[in-house]
């Protein structure tokens, strides 16, 4: 009979799909739902628990690259700002923050004393400013001349306005920029140098050809216990008996790689571990050679001392890296400004100490973080952004567990109290029903909030079980009421009287005669009370009352709401962050309601006739 109910089947299929996702979450989700890291312990010199973020914050879904309408390549765009006078300074405020009601009107004398040296910040990888235009409040447009009215700031992505304009003047900068969808890139294939073949990908040059040899060493590398990755690169220096070189420079180059994107990577992360014997100190330089520019960027130079393996990490977020190549921030924009071929290299420099020396290098890695990642992108968590697809998959677990357990518990409490109050009657009945009325009348969400906050004040956090407990506590009332009214009418039926006359006790009658008769209602209520629990759990998490260590759908929504993306960019740009989750909540809730309706139709003959 169930097969005939189309709506019920749809509901059931949706529930089965989500249960499948929830049960097999660890196999479906590629990453951990909270603080995912990769390469934990692989860079041994950093420490055993250290791992890397899987991607950059706010990455877009990786399949965006198949969408033809997403702009890629070089494009011309513009930035707009308005002049605004405050006290004696004139500012440029970005268009999105501009409010014409805010600008005060100044007298001409006041305006004369105003100075201006404000700048417009351009976004994206700027390759050139084409035009700067000012539109005065009286709608006349003038084109501004470079170095007279404006000039480039300390980087090309700033335009400094040198001229003073009346308030509410609109200044528009037209410029060219590159936009692209950049995938994560791992430049060094085998950073652990676990096989001799991995060494063949490296080339080397030196200024002391006769004294230096670079080879693969299969013993001295950093080793993770239980794995076979003891290889490393060995730089051997043979001290000559006569006139040793004053400095020895050896450069290891990895295979040239193509960076095909018009937009720089969001971040780069480079790691080298090295150790030395036979010399007191040496320098490790990390460099990237750009073929287009014919220029070598030395990103970092670090002086190391003799001893065991020590790490060198070069992170584009480190302001030192930026200043090393002469920019104030975003070194990646300078290095990877345009598509082209690049070579990653390590240079070892040292002054010989009149003896042979050996330097070992291991765990050499160069990672470029792009702006697309995973099936649903990443969120803005710092420092480990979440893979939203994994969070979504694991979230199904929490939602289903909370929903189903709450429904189970509250339905059985409702069944028990309803049977008890209906069959026993009297004062107990009155007390239970009045209490149920009271709970039904109270505004639910504020009551939940008060309960959860009270719990949190005493115990610090709220676990999933607390939430289930509270939802159960406030979920049994309406079902208890319907069971009671059913029992009241059943009680007067002849078969109950017959059972009583036959000597059946209270328990026997409840068990054998009442429960079977109300059980249809139990199935229906089980199905229809799941959605409320799922949505309430999500709402509580959304308000920040959930467990922050629990990967629930509510946490995704809470993070989105707190990211500020909603009012700055809206759902359109980051729809993949919450859209799947919200749709899943709605689908799951609707599926349980449909299932409940279908059960109602099947188990309730009166409804069947009416249709």
């Amino acid at each position, binding site marked *: 009979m169930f097969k005939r109910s189309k709506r019920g089947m749809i509901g059931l299929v949706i529930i089965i799909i989500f249960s499948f996702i929830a049960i097999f979450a660890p196999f479906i989700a590629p990453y951990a739902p909270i603080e995912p890291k990769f390469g934990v312990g692989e860079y041994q010199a950093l420490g055993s628990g250290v791992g890397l973020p899987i991607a950059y914050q706010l990455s877009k879904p990786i399949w965006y690259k198949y969408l033809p309408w997403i702009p890629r390549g070089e494009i011309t765009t513009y930035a707009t700002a308005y002049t605004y006078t405050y006290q004696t300074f004139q500012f440029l405020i970005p268009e999105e923050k501009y409010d014409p009601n805010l600008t005060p009107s100044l007298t001409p004398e006041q305006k004369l004393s105003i100075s201006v040296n404000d700048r417009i910040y351009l976004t994206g990888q700027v390759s050139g400013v084409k035009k700067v235009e000012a539109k005065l409040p009286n709608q006349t447009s003038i084109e501004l001349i470079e170095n007279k009215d404006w000039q480039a700031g300390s980087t090309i992505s700033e335009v400094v306005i040198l001229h003073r304009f009346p308030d509410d003047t609109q200044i528009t900068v037209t410029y060219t920029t590159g936009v692209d969808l950049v995938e994560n890139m791992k430049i060094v294939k085998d950073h652990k140098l676990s096989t001799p073949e991995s060494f063949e990908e490296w080339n080397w040059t030196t200024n002391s050809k006769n004294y230096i040899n670079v080879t693969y060493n299969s013993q001295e590398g950093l080793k993770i216990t239980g794995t076979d990755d003891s290889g490393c690169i060995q730089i051997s220096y043979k001290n000559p008996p006569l006139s040793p070189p004053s400095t020895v420079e050896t450069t290891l180059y990895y295979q040239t790689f193509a960076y095909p994107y018009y937009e720089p990577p969001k971040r780069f992360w480079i790691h080298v571990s090295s150790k030395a014997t036979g010399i007191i100190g040496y320098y490790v330089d990390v460099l990237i050679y750009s073929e287009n520019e014919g220029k070598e960027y030395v990103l970092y130079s670090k002086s190391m001392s003799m001893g065991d393996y020590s790490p060198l990490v070069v992170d584009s977020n480190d302001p030192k890296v930026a200043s090393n190549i002469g920019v104030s921030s975003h070194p990646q924009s300078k290095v990877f400004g345009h598509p082209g071929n690049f070579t990653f290299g390590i240079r070892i420099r040292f002054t010989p100490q009149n003896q042979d020396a050996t330097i070992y290098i291991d765990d050499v890695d160069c990672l470029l973080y792009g702006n697309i990642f995973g099936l649903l992108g990443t969120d803005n968590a710092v420092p480990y952004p979440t893979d939203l697809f994994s969070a979504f998959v694991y979230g199904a677990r929490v939602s289903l567990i909370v929903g189903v357990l709450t429904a189970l518990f509250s339905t059985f409490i409702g069944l028990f109290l309803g049977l008890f109050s209906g069959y026993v009657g009297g004062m107990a009945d009155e007390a239970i029903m009045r209490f149920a009325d009271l709970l039904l009348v109270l505004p639910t969400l504020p009551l939940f*909030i008060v309960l959860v906050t009270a719990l949190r004040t005493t115990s610090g956090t709220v676990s999933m079980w607390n939430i289930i407990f509270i939802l159960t506590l406030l979920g049994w009332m309406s079902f208890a009421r319907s069971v009671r009214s059913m029992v009241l009418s059943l009680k007067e039926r002849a078969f109950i009287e017959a059972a009583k006359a036959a000597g059946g006790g209270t328990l026997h009658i409840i068990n054998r005669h009442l429960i079977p008769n109300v059980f249809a209602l139990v199935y229906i209520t089980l199905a229809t009370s799941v959605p409320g629990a799922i949505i309430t759990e999500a709402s509580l998490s959304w308000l920040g009352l959930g467990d922050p260590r629990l990967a629930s759908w509510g946490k995704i929504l809470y993070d989105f709401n707190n990211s500020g993306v909603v009012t700055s960019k809206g759902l359109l740009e980051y729809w993949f962050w919450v859209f799947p989750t919200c749709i899943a909540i709605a689908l799951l809730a609707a599926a349980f309601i449909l299932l409940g309706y279908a059960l109602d139709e099947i188990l309730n003959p009166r409804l069947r006739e009416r249709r």
Partner: protein
Amino acid sequence: MGLKGYIARRLVYTVILIWAVITVNFIIFALMPGNPIEAYVSKLSKMDEAKFQQMLKYYGLDKPLHERYLLSLEHLLTFNFGISYNYGSPVFEVIMQRLPNTLLLGGIAEVTSIILGMLIGVIVAYKRGGALDTGIVTASLLTYSVPIFFLGWVLITIFCLQLHWLPTGLEQPVAWSRVPPSSIFEYISGRLYHIALPAITLILFTVGGWILLTRACILEVISEDYVLTARAKGLKERTVLYKHVLKNASLPLITNVALGFAYIISGATITETLFSYRGMGLLTYSAIMTGPDLPLLQAIFYILALCVIIANLIADLLYGIIDPRIKYA
């Protein structure tokens, strides 16, 4: 007896409910495991000695439990909620600034939602089984099951960020803090302009429930014998629908008006937070986020419960007037 007895019973019941709400409030904050109030006050002692002494005295924490219960009964009945931890002013004053905003938002949303829901519900019930019925029932189910903040996000994206028709937040224009509105017309239009989006969100959130409920109530009545009789008499279909069916179907709907109000208050908590609309919901959110500000939270819950209880009382009284079985009993 009749109507008067009914009203008297309802009033007594309301008084009992208020007492019960106060008791529940006391149980949650003073008797729950770990004792939230004591935990909260003892946490204060480390931060702010003056406030600690104030709270200690207000809650009577040095007194035995039954005296504390009587104290809280007295406090809540006289609207003496103590001093808000965040705002530093009496909680009652803080709440009274916010309550009208919430009642306005909730009222507009509730009334619009009921009218819309009943209209659509009647039409859908009358054309049951058709494509329109299936479509609207499915849509109602979906809006009913979509989390309300998602509706809000979608509306913000469409009306604020794409079309630039409506503001994303606040309950009145920002400029009013410097220049108050000059005319009553400007005041009303300014308020409506800001209330529109939260209200639409709430309406979308609740209208689905009303459509489904109206449909169900009408289907319950439409198969009754007296409807058949009315049709057999040769009455016009419209007369049958509005005079015989809707009139009888509206009784259970009225009971649900008060419950719907409680539901809207719940929804408003989230909507207000989403739209930074300064009502009770946003106040709740800030009370959770900063602190928590337990005295404020306690009072908010009590006042919201009072509002819902009063709404219930009004609905019950209306029910008594409309339902002839009570009037002439």
